[in-house]
């Protein structure tokens, strides 16, 4: 018996050393962020971090290349056969992680899933009237009206396997607003370069390289460990000590420290994201306020007063330490459609704000709750605190509720809010991606899906529809300018600033930084 035991442990030793040798060659990348991807479901939440993580597992028909230009992904080519019909040729020989083939049926299924109940991605597929299957690898998309930027829109719509979703009872998206969870939150089956190996929500999520990926993986990372670290100083300590390889975002107060460290580097760039405040303009009585029987935010003077009470330059210099650009529009200059002549913010003027409030019938201000995330945007809770202090000076008492995005997003997406903060990235790099989901009146097909205060102007709606179908750049830009002007005059939202990208990493890491803050692991190499 003794010899048997001995030989068995010898075998174990041999196996273990073989494993150790194997893992010594494998490249592991440890990525940290201030928060976790709330679900692995690619249709459940239109939030950049979740998309950033999930887009390494799932893929869309169209993607962006290293240079951020449109590139084929699961579709190899597309063309307009008539003003309202687009023909997409699908890539052949693509397999999902479970080995099943990717076909036209999966695309149709993914459309139904993303356009249906509970989906947060409706605005990416809202233009489609119907899909015609020509054969297993060819599809015709019929749009409601001519829509020239459909391929751009498709970069945000990811493909899932019909079979797998049916087997896992995940044919409907995970919907946090209603507390609906399903297997797609914890398991994943995409076509992407990485497969999900282990998911521990808000602790760590590990991914391993997909050996049968259809495309080329330029980087050399075999394994990715994603860890959320909420506390700024803990996260920066983890980077300084070498415990993690890449982190996003670097707290603005620690930028200098990372820059001066010989082992680390900082990648900075303008992010497409605009941070703004929204106000409930729909309800006849504000939900969380001491004003009864009416809604002060319906009055443009009140909205203007809020706007002018905010000292954005001091927020920039003190809270953001310069890592932000105050902005007057809901999308930054890098986005197609930006109106270069409408860059003037309403001036910061507490006296004028007070006067406006008095005119509107609130000489002593009023009380309202403000909702704010504390682990989503750069210094989000600090910005809200500063705004609350600014508003206190004109007599408005803000009851600030800053919380983690896991409870924050479901709450504001249910529209259980009177005054809230949101950041938006025009992921198609086109103004339509802001005009349609944020400025338009909430309606079908994802229209106004993130217009959480229900700002509404018929002219804006009409022009937005026209912008969608217009092909002539000059006319299109003129219409976008008109919308921006109306929205600015009516203070539909209060834009605050454009955020800066601040990624920190070890010196030996090479990666591609896109302005939409999405991190593609397949381009990451560790030297």
């Amino acid at each position, binding site marked *: 018996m003794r010899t048997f035991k001995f030989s068995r442990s010898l075998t174990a030793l041999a196996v273990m050393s073989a494993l150790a040798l194997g893992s010594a060659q494998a490249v592991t990348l440890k990525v940290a962020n201030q928060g976790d991807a709330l679900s692995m479901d690619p249709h459940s939440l239109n939030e950049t971090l979740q998309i950033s993580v999930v887009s390494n597992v799932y893929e869309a028909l169209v993607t962006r290349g290293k240079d951020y230009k449109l590139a084929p992904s699961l579709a190899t080519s597309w063309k307009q056969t008539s003003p309202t019909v687009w023909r997409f040729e699908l890539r052949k020989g693509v397999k999902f992680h479970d080995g099943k083939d990717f076909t036209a049926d999966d695309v149709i299924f993914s459309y139904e899933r993303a356009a249906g109940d509970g989906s947060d991605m409706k605005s990416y597929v809202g233009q489609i009237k119907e899909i015609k299957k020509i054969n297993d690898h060819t599809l015709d998309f019929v749009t409601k009206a001519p829509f020239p930027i459909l391929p751009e829109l498709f970069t945000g719509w990811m493909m899932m396997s019909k079979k797998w979703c049916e087997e896992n009872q995940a044919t409907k998206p995970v919907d946090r607003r209603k507390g609906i969870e399903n297997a797609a939150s914890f398991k994943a089956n995409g076509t992407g370069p990485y497969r999900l190996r282990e998911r521990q929500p808000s602790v760590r999520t590990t991914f391993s390289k997909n050996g049968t990926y259809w495309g080329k993986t330029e980087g050399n990372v075999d394994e990715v460990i994603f860890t959320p670290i909420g506390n700024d100083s803990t996260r920066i300590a983890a980077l300084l000590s070498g415990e993690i390889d890449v982190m996003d975002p670097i707290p603005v107060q620690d930028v200098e420290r990372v820059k001066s460290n010989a082992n680390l580097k900082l990648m900075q760039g303008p992010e497409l994201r605009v941070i703004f405040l929204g106000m409930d303009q729909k309800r006849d009585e504000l939900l969380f306020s001491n004003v009864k029987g009416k809604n002060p935010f319906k009055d443009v003077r009140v909205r203007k007063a809020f706007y002018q009470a905010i000292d954005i330059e001091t927020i920039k210099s003190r*809270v953001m330490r310069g890592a932000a650009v105050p902005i007057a529009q809901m999308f930054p200059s890098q986005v197609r459609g930006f109106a270069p002549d409408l860059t003037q913010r309403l001036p910061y003027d507490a006296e004028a704000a007070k006067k406006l409030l008095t005119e509107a019938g609130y000489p002593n201000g009023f009380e309202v709750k403000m909702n704010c995330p504390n682990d989503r945007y750069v210094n989000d809770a600090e910005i809200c605190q500063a705004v609350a202090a600014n508003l206190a000076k004109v007599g408005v008492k803000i009851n600030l509720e800053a919380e983690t995005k896991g409870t924050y997003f479901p709450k504001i997406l249910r529209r259980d809010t009177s005054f809230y903060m949101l950041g938006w990235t025009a992921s198609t790099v086109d103004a339509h991606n802001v005009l349609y989901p944020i400025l338009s009146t909430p309606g079908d097909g994802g229209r106004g899906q993130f217009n959480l205060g229900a700002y509404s102007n018929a002219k804006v709606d009409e022009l937005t529809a026209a912008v969608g179908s217009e092909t002539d750049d000059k006319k299109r830009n003129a219409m976008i300018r008109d919308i921006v002007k109306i929205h600015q005059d009516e203070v539909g939202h209060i834009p605050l600033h454009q955020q800066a990208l601040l990624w920190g990493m070890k010196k030996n890491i090479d990666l591609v930084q896109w302005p939409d803050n999405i991190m593609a692991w397949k381009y990451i190499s560790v030297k």
Partner: protein
Amino acid sequence: MTNALKRWLNSDVGYSFRQSPTAMVAAFIAFVCLFCSVFAGWVSPTNPFDLATLELSDARLPPAWMEGGTSKFLLGTDDQGRDILSALIYGSRISLIVGLASVLLSVVVGVGLGLLAGFRGGWIDALLMRLCDVMLSFPAILVALLIAGVGRALFPNAHESLAFGVLILSISLTGWVQYARTVRGTTLVERNKEYVQAARVTGVAPLRIMVRHVLPNVMGPVMVLATIQVATAIITEATLSFLGVGAPPTSPSLGTLIRVGNDYLFSGEWWITIFPGLMLVLIALSVNLLGDWLRDALNPRLR
């Protein structure tokens, strides 16, 4: 008032107080902290909770003696332009209120249950003491976290005052066990003494015996324990607030201040977190030293 003080200083406990410089220093510090907290409105240079007085342009100024500091903000300012000194004074008020309230609550619960267990014995005793064992087998902070979490889930739209209620409740629900055990032990000894027997023989009701005869005799150790527990409760409160489940950031306790300041430690703005930390140490240490002294003073074997 002065007479009472004189009489106290001449008593046994007063004598031992006069003999102990540690106790005197600790009492002085504790008194100053208590005074500042009670009269925060007059003592503190600004009201840090009044958002209308905050100037963001004053944010993160260093203490007055450093370059860039101003005499207006003696200990510097935090990330929102709040005066650290004022925040400390108001913060320690919250810490002290939460600490004292939760100790009071746990004394009431603990002494009551301990007395009952010790005096009645039998299955009540067995039940209560097993409950204590279960409570003791979990770290206090874990139980407090659980209660705070459940409290928040039950009242999702909780107002700030409710947050403090949950905080006090969660600390006292973990603290009562100590008192229950101590009181039960002492009660077991006391209930067989002659004076209790005598009371029983003369037909005094059990409840009256418990409250009027046994209770005064078990209060000595409870007083000592309570003093020391105030420090523990303050630290538990700070820990919970540091973990983000305690006092809200708009009315920060010391723990919340330390947590907020912690983010700025690496960037060299040390004063935002170090001063609240020092304040916490000072309060906890002085209260603890007082408790230690009280234990020695009340212990007949050390006399």
